[in-house]
């Protein structure tokens, strides 16, 4: 199961791309209530969005982006059937990517 859900819909002028990523986005400041120990930081640092293989948006994130991060942007010059690819890398080196054809 991918951690990434993408929705990309072509409109009259722009294509609206929305993405939701399953990720805890731990800040490293929160404490485990049972043990009292800090929960180590675990957050996405970089998200790259590509349109047909060309990078169109690079998101650099810190730990203050919400858990289950949401991202939406608008793209000119894309059409139905074009491929949107989204990839992320977190501070532990974990990563995932997903692709979706524009509807």
């Amino acid at each position, binding site marked *: 199961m991918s951690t990434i859900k993408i929705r990309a819909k072509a409109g009259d002028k722009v294509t609206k791309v929305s993405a939701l990523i399953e990720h805890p986005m731990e800040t490293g400041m929160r404490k485990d209530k049972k043990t009292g120990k800090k929960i180590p930081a675990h957050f996405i640092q970089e998200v790259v969005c590509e349109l047909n293989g060309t990078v*169109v948006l*690079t*998101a*650099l994130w810190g730990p203050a982006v919400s858990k289950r991060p949401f991202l939406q*942007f608008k*793209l*000119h010059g894309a059409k139905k059937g074009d491929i949107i690819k989204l990839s992320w890398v977190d501070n532990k*080196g974990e990563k995932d990517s997903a692709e979706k054809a524009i509807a």
Partner: protein
Amino acid sequence: MINMKRRTFLKGSVAVGAVSAAMGAGLLTPRVVLAAWPSNAFKATTVDAALDALAGSHAMTRSDKVQIDAPDLGENSAVVPVKVFSQLDDIESISILVEKNASPLTASFILGPGVEGFINTRIKMGKTSNVIAVVKAGGKLYSAQKEVKITIGGCGG
């Protein structure tokens, strides 16, 4: 040492991505291609220091061509929706900073070809603070800000 490896790994993956992106587009500027996670900017404890580390300057101009949309009252401080709009030309990046978070820089989006001056995302806030949108366009920084009230343990009152 684990951390060092990660840094090397990150640099490596960015470089590989950069080569393929450059071949695919031939349009991207080197600055966009060589973007790496700016840890100094994300660790900075003031807005000015974060912008210095991120953009090389914190000289911002308030602009009505930058708008920020966030709630007056953040009912859930862990999920505050923020939208940034900008009608400026040649937008290079859109960054979101929370003035009173321990580390103000929350997110920075580097816009490539064809991306409209619009970003919608969700952020965490520690307490009531100004949320600042900074748009870099034509090498200069333009900003807009909005105060979001956070009621600790609140029920929206």
